[in-house]
């Protein structure tokens, strides 16, 4: 069992893992019934799916010809930017009131609310006192 054969098997395994995770992400995006639940399915392809495909590309390039590791740049970029875009999409869902509304704040505790500051009775009480 030489090195090229092992590299071919590793490439094939990584390709299959990436494709399966892409399919799982798409099925989850279609089947979940709440916008906030739908947000968690496509993170699979964002991390493991593209990660496995880029890993297959790295392994394949390093065995076929003199490859390099600059596919890892794309992976690092995706890992950095995926939480930022997920945060913005969650803020859109909260802003549009598409998800379940958060529970009301308990009395005498400081919680973040969805109410505007003028409608917040606690804030009004703080202003008058």
């Amino acid at each position, binding site marked *: 069992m030489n090195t090229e054969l092992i590299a071919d098997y590793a490439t094939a395994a990584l390709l299959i893992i990436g494709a*399966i995770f892409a399919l799982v992400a798409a099925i989850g995006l279609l089947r979940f019934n709440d916008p906030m639940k739908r947000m968690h399915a*496509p993170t699979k392809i964002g991390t493991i799916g593209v990660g496995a495909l880029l890993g297959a590309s790295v392994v394949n390039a390093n065995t076929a010809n003199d490859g*390099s590791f600059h596919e890892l740049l794309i992976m690092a970029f995706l890992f950095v930017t995926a939480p930022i875009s997920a945060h913005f999409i969650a803020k*859109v869902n909260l*802003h*549009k009131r*598409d998800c379940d509304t958060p529970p009301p704040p308990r009395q005498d505790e400081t919680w973040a609310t969805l109410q505007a500051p003028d409608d917040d009775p606690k804030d009004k009480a703080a202003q008058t006192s």
Partner: protein
Amino acid sequence: MTQELDIVQLSVIMAMVRLVIGPSVGDRILSLDTMVVNAIGLIVLLGISQGTQIYFEVAMIIAMLGFVSTVALARFVLRGDIIE
């Protein structure tokens, strides 16, 4: 090789179905982001099947453009303006 291309293309199509039927704006932005990530995977697969390294820049630029467009769409929905 071609089976993986087929599967990733199928997931692009499923994300596009969610883009069409998605009831809210957040779903549409999310499925556009998913389609961009799937496109990166497709381009990487194309580069593996052709055995070249020239698709690396294409995937990098699509990743950057996808992130910027997702943030721009979300900011437009949130603030009513992209650059204020």
